[in-house]
């Protein structure tokens, strides 16, 4: 797939998506220091290009299964940023009514099967959504986001194997950010080759730079197209870096100071994107600056509205356990 001729509108969309994720996550990082956000937060700063690149090929009919680091996936899939912010603040108007929080943000209307607190749980779920697509005889696909940590989970192995056995329309996107929690992937992935392992299950899988929108969008587009053509499960291993720790508050003692500082300079997908489009005169820098300004306002409003919103009323505790009981 050649993305060199991507229309201007799509380029602007991609940048807006990445920038929105970045601002959303950075702002949560700041807001969290006020103590007004409860619970665990796993930020995806540094991995925005993967979300934007993959989702640029999906419609709302296509499903994604996300991870505990799921804010970016939801934003890229089309979820309402303000409702997401309310959810993270645990407010009644949140995307999940304040019942899920950061780790369980889901948006089924957008085909987003949820962030997931269980590492690797998305694998089997995604092949289920793919099975629905197959039974409907549609050309919809399911995309499963997994980290390098999840790539070691048995359920993911089972999902990969069964997707091939049943010929399901699913794409596995391995976001290899180098660490599962506080342990390096070089240690935990025994073969040090996630793509090779997926290939061993019969899933053609490519390795790409996940910090460059164009390379990840290109690879994901090819994989998704092949799935839509009925060529069976496909995979992409996208390398990127998380700019923050595993969770907010992680002192990151397992990383060198140099690494933490360097990735912000060398591997920032937004910087990479600006450089690429400037090089080919494909966009005016002013257009990107305008998006930056709009996104800043959006996130400001999202935080202000989330802070001002009411907490859920206590009687919500007992609601929505079952549809009928």
């Amino acid at each position, binding site marked *: 797939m050649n993305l060199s001729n991507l229309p201007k509108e799509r380029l602007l969309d991609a940048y807006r998506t990445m920038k929105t994720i970045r601002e959303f996550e950075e702002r949560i990082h700041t807001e969290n220091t006020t103590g007004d956000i409860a619970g665990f937060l796993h930020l995806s700063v540094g991995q925005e290009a993967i979300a934007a690149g993959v989702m640029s090929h999906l419609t709302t009919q296509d499903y994604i299964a996300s991870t505990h680091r799921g804010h970016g996936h939801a934003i890229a899939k089309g979820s309402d940023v303000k409702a997401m912010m309310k959810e993270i603040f645990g407010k009644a108007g949140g995307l999940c009514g304040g*019942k899920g929080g950061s780790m369980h943000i889901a948006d089924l209307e957008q085909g987003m099967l949820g962030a997931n607190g269980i590492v690797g749980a998305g694998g089997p779920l995604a*092949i*289920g959504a793919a099975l629905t697509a197959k039974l409907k005889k549609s050309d919809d696909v399911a995309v499963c986001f997994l980290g390098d940590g999840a790539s070691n989970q048995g*359920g993911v192995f089972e999902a990969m194997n069964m997707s091939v056995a*049943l010929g399901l329309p699913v794409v596995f996107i391995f976001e290899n950010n180098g660490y599962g929690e506080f342990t390096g992937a070089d240690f935990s992935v025994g073969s040090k080759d996630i793509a090779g392992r997926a290939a061993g299950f019969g899933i053609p899988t490519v390795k790409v730079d996940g910090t460059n929108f164009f390379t990840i969008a290109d690879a994901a587009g090819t994989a998704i197209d092949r799935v839509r053509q009925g060529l069976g499960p496909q995979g992409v291993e996208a390398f990127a870096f998380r700019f923050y720790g595993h969770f907010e508050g992680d002192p990151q003692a397992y990383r060198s100071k140099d690494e933490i500082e360097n990735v912000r300079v060398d591997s920032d997908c937004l910087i990479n994107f600006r450089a690429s489009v400037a090089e080919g005169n494909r966009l005016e820098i002013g257009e990107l600056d305008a998006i930056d300004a709009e996104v800043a306002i959006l996130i400001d409003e999202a935080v202000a509205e989330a802070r001002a919103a009411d907490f859920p009323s206590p009687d919500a505790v007992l609601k*929505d356990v079952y549809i009928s009981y």
Partner: protein
Amino acid sequence: MAIKTIRQAIGEALRLEMARDEHVFIMGEDVAGGRGGTGVLDAAGGVLGITKDLLEEFGEDRVIDTPISETAILGCAVGAAVSGSRPVAELMFNDFMGVCFDPLLNQAAKFRYMFGGKAETPLVVRTMYGAGIRAAAQHSQTLYHMFTSVPGLKCVCPSNAYDAKGLLIQAIRDNDPVVFLEHKALYDIPGVETPDEAYTIPFGEANFVRDGTDITIVAMGLMVHIASGVAEELAKSGVSVEIVDPRTTSPLDTDSILESVEKTGRLVVMDESAARCGFAHDIAALVADRAFGSLKAPIKTITPPHTPVPFSPALEDAWLPGPEDLVKAITAVMEY
């Protein structure tokens, strides 16, 4: 209308619902069987033959053989359910839940709640449970108490063919995730009148297997049949036993259990699930909490011992609660 066994009733329910709703499909290990072999397809129809012939009728898209891969089976079924299908996944033995609880415990059961009431996960997991056929420790457990304790799951344990058919159809039409447990010793016991048509039995409505006035026995699955035999015998000596079969543990028909105990004033719970934190203890606590004033004697619970299920017939027979245990408990309660 004819006499049907539980085995027949379950097969009939699956066939009727698959014919009624194209979104319904079955998946599991060897639900048809024979794929990749040198023999014929539909070689098995499930380990007990219950799903035999469905392949021919509904095709391979809707009768899905899977690898031996329980996490993927349940997880795939959950993902399919939340995206608009109505899967009936077969987990051959409920013991296998040990390798695949996450899709039920953390996914299906919690979606609706975690996602703020927006998810529907119309999933059925059919699974065999129970001791008595010398299947030993990893194929004989009764785990409904575990599913019952998970909010978001419904849990169904029929004891006869009429209930099995109506409850399975209800389970398939239900929009919440349902674990449907089939006691392996009951599939081929003498059947009962079961309509040929599709019908439903609502969850949370106990069956009064037998009306009585002296003592209430709460029992499910195989234990219902043991209790019925004992009640029949005791009637001759003038003890009038009422047997309440909750049929579903989640939701639970607490009203019927309390109503019965308030009438009889005595309660024995006979349960195969667990010696600790089991279903029997849940019922005993319910009655102690809400009907203490009606009790004429202490509540008795009968469960297997706190051990795995042994293999040797001599040991398994000793392990499984039987009629003598019940007679002893009833006598103690009546003579209190």
